[in-house]
């Protein structure tokens, strides 16, 4: 006796229980195996690139914050670097250290959210998530002490940063870094020996090395496939060539490797912050003087940084006036999204949802 089967189209709608944002997928299922995935997005498209052409350069900095709202300070950096190169503005040394410290703190708190919401997808309903938010709240409080904001910081300026560190900031940051290894050990004991976690993540969502390069993925997704490439070490910007840090690289390209890479990167970021606090000069200016309405000479440039999700770049064209002519952002989450079709087809539906969580999307960046 044979069954008559037919394929069924399931709509995983724009609202999600995890913090993945407004993203819609149409999944074609045969039983429980995924046959085809069609991603549909654009629900958060605000036209940021066109809006920036109608505002002055300085008014564009808060608009870049709203691109990848989970890790907001990193988005200011390539735009500010591009304008500084075209206009010939120099950044004082103390301001470079402050930028690095804030960006690495943001990397740690972004990875906490990524791993926490991945655990949500696996069924541990907000347990690991709330433990990780315990640390993320401490980091958010520290950043509020410096910038005055909890989420859209608007901290970097052309030629430096907007405010100096208050005198309570550095001792409190050092206190956080002293207890940080104890928290990391707590998470490793919770996760890496857990049978359910190991059987749900090992061998799931495998991406080969050739595919990872062909699909232009970047960040932890590229490094999990065995490609040893990190913009901070290989095409360095700012003062990253002064710090010693390791770049974790995975072997198998599965979901276990991606979570492991994010946990290891958090430890490396804490080490970079410690080195920066030790090497930062005590005296010095934190911003070069720049005219209020800035006219940037004509030119075209492209600058890239390593954000928690991958390679974030800014392509800037200017025509000599006080507004940009064209500003485009190379968004890593938008391009990593192309890998979904390759990763999800052929797996069961529950494994497909876990794979989708491990790519770590942020919809503000995908739609712009």
């Amino acid at each position: 006796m044979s069954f008559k089967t037919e394929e069924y189209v399931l709509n995983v709608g724009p609202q999600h229980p995890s913090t993945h944002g407004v993203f819609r997928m149409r999944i074609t299922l045969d039983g429980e195996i995924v046959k085809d995935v069609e991603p549909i997005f654009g629900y958060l498209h605000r036209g940021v690139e066109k809006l920036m052409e109608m505002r002055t350069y300085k008014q564009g900095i808060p608009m870049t914050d709203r691109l990848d709202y989970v890790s907001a300070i990193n988005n200011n950096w390539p735009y500010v670097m591009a304008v500084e190169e075209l206009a010939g503005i120099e950044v004082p040394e103390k301001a470079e250290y402050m930028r690095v410290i804030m960006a690495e703190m943001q990397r740690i708190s972004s990875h906490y959210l990524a791993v926490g919401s991945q655990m949500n997808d696996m069924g541990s309903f907000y347990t690991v998530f709330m433990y990780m938010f315990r640390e993320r709240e401490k980091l958010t409080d520290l950043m509020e002490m410096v910038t005055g904001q909890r989420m859209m910081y608007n901290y970097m300026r052309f030629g430096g940063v907007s405010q100096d560190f208050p005198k309570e900031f550095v001792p409190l940051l050092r206190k956080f870094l002293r207890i940080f290894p104890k928290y990391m050990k707590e998470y490793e004991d919770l996760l890496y020996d857990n049978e359910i976690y190991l059987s749900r993540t090992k061998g799931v969502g495998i991406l080969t090395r050739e595919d990872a390069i062909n699909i232009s993925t970047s960040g932890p997704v590229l490094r999990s496939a065995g490609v040893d490439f990190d913009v901070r070490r290989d095409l360095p910007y700012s003062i990253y060539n002064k710090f010693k840090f390791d770049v974790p690289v995975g072997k198998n390209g599965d979901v276990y490797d991606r979570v492991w890479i994010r946990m290891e990167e958090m430890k490396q970021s804490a080490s970079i912050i410690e080195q920066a606090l030790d090497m930062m000069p005590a005296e010095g200016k934190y911003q070069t003087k720049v005219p209020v309405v800035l006219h940037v000479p004509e030119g075209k440039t492209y600058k890239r940084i390593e954000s928690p999700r991958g390679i974030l770049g800014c392509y800037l064209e200017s025509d000599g006036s006080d507004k940009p002519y064209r500003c485009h952002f190379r968004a890593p989450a938008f391009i990593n999204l192309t890998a979904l079709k390759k990763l999800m087809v052929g797996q069961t539906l529950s494994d497909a949802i876990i794979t989708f969580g491990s790519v770590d999307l942020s919809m503000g960046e995908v739609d712009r």
Partner: protein
Amino acid sequence: MRMGKEIKMKTYDALSKQFEYVKTGNGFAEIPSENILECTEWLKNEAGYDYLEMITASDHNEKFLLVYTLINVVDKTDIIIRTSVPREKPEIDSLSNIWTGADFQEREIFDLMGIVFKGHKNLKRIVLWDGFEGHPQRKDFKDVI
């Protein structure tokens, strides 16, 4: 760092020796739009630039300027290629059959700027909704409101 720059200069020299239509200078290579497929395939297979990083476009009144950046992950260098298409006939070959990573980026440029990529298997709007008329990132776009 200096070794990376030397490899990059050698690549620009080799590229302009290989194809006579290449013009280099100021840190990028400029080519005519018909030869984009030939040039990027040579860079991928012979020179090791197999990671396509970014495609973007901008509107310069009589023509559209297109910018492609590629990275060599083994030698750790990057290369920038520029080309342009005329405004009356904005068409260029698609790279999505060689690099899957070009798929969404070319759809976004078609959606917002109106450049048609020949050979793309699924060229439809991606960020705006399906019934939208016009291409908003062009300089002469007027909103209906």
